[in-house]
């Protein structure tokens, strides 16, 4: 399976970690862990620059995370104009890795505060495309 179902718009269809999309369809958000040095990678990667190893294992993230920073976009690049306003967020997962995703539309802008608990969750678009988003924990 290729990677081109990931995201609202996809710019990349081939990657060694295309299985991420397969897992995501099954409701699992996966990171990779280097079997050589033990480092956890999210977004997942197939290679470990620390020891030049390519021996990695998939590992499920709990999804528990905290908001680090965010912005609500009222202007958007071509292809995303119909979605404004949307809130882009960076969150810290309990496993130590960070995630870049949109905040769920169910969270009101005045509820948002840095440090709040969030839950990283798979999301299927009506057209069959898949992604993940950050929901209220």
């Amino acid at each position, binding site marked *: 399976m290729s990677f081109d179902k990931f995201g609202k718009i996809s710019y*990349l269809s081939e990657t060694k970690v295309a299985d991420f999309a397969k897992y995501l369809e099954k409701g699992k958000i996966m990171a990779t862990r280097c079997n050589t040095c033990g480092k956890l990678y999210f977004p997942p990667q197939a290679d470990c620059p620390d020891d030049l190893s390519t021996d990695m294992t998939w590992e499920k993230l709990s999804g528990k995370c905290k908001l680090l920073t965010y912005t609500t976009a*009222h*202007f958007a690049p*071509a*292809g995303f104009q119909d979605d404004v306003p949307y809130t*882009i967020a*960076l969150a810290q997962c309990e496993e130590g890795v960070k995630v870049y995703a949109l905040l769920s539309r169910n969270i009101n802008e005045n509820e948002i505060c840095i440090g709040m608990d969030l839950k990283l969750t798979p999301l299927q678009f009506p057209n069959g495309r898949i992604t993940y988003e950050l929901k209220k924990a």
Partner: protein
Amino acid sequence: MSVAIVGVGQTPFSRNCGVSIRELCFEAFREALEDLNLTSKEIDASIICSAPEYDKQRSPAGLISEYLGLTPKPTFYAESICSSSSTGVKVGYSFIKSGLHEIVAVIGFQKMSEISSAEVQERMGRGADTQWESPFGTMMPAGYAMYARAHMQKYGTTEEQLAKIKVKSGKYALLNPLAIFRREITLEECLKARVIASPLKMYDCCANADGASCVIMASEEKARKTTDTPVWVAGIGAASDTLSTTGRSNLTGLTCAVDAAKQAYQMAHLEPKDVDVAEVHDCFTIAEIMAYENLGFCKPSEGGKLIEESQTYIGGKIPVNVDGGLLSKGHPIGATGGSQIRTIVLQLQGRAGKTQVKGAEVGLVHNIGGIGVYGNVTLLRR
């Protein structure tokens, strides 16, 4: 052997230049050679700097070097997005210092008016990690807005302080005939403007522009023959941070700028307090506040206070962006670094007119590519 900047040029930055990219570059090149004892035939190499995909011409290095009469000298294209021409200056320095070349032209350009603003942001969005971040509708304002939000949360920086950066920018842009926006803007206008990416509003963001810049560099020997007022490259620093937002450890400052500044100060044997005038990369108001901190003009957390106290106006502790900065000049990506260098060179030559910082001996250029991905700091000396 020292390396000098002997000539600088820049076109007006505009919303719609109406000419082709090679014609735009010619104009900047012509200004750079004015009053120099130098013909284009004596230039050993050129470096053409821009970001691709804003116009249709691919591999513009060959096109532009031909139009400027630099053929058969070597040329190539250098890119680090918004800091492309500072990267060019770094390569130019090393070409000369290594002995490969004696006189190098660094030409930066961008023509952004052929496509819409949303299309520009789409291309900028694809300058983020296209696998993991672009699919979320990333754009430049959003990236800097996330830094702004974190800076406000951690240090108590306010939207008023951000706006005051733009107020200063407007004041000086009024005196810069090459700027796109030449009018003063009030604090109130800034605060009432529509939101682009919260907390950044319209006047917190710089505008896309068309424009070109040119920097002529020379070895010490050639510099002395070419001009009476060479400006010396005292220090050069360059560093990177992760392209991914998820890779960032610091959300309230740009570590690539901190690292680049450290290298440049060390190479020049200078400290922040030695800088008489600075150009910093104010693509967004928050970027200038972080630059104050990252360059050591104040402590981390105190950037907002520095503008609040007007310390970065002429007459203050350290005058910053007295040409109006990107916020008012406009930001034709590849041309921006060269324009910043031009401003500092004119300051150090005492040719800055109404915005001259008296007795300026040491100047600094801080030029950032992407959302803190490529950090470049150049120290120049009279």
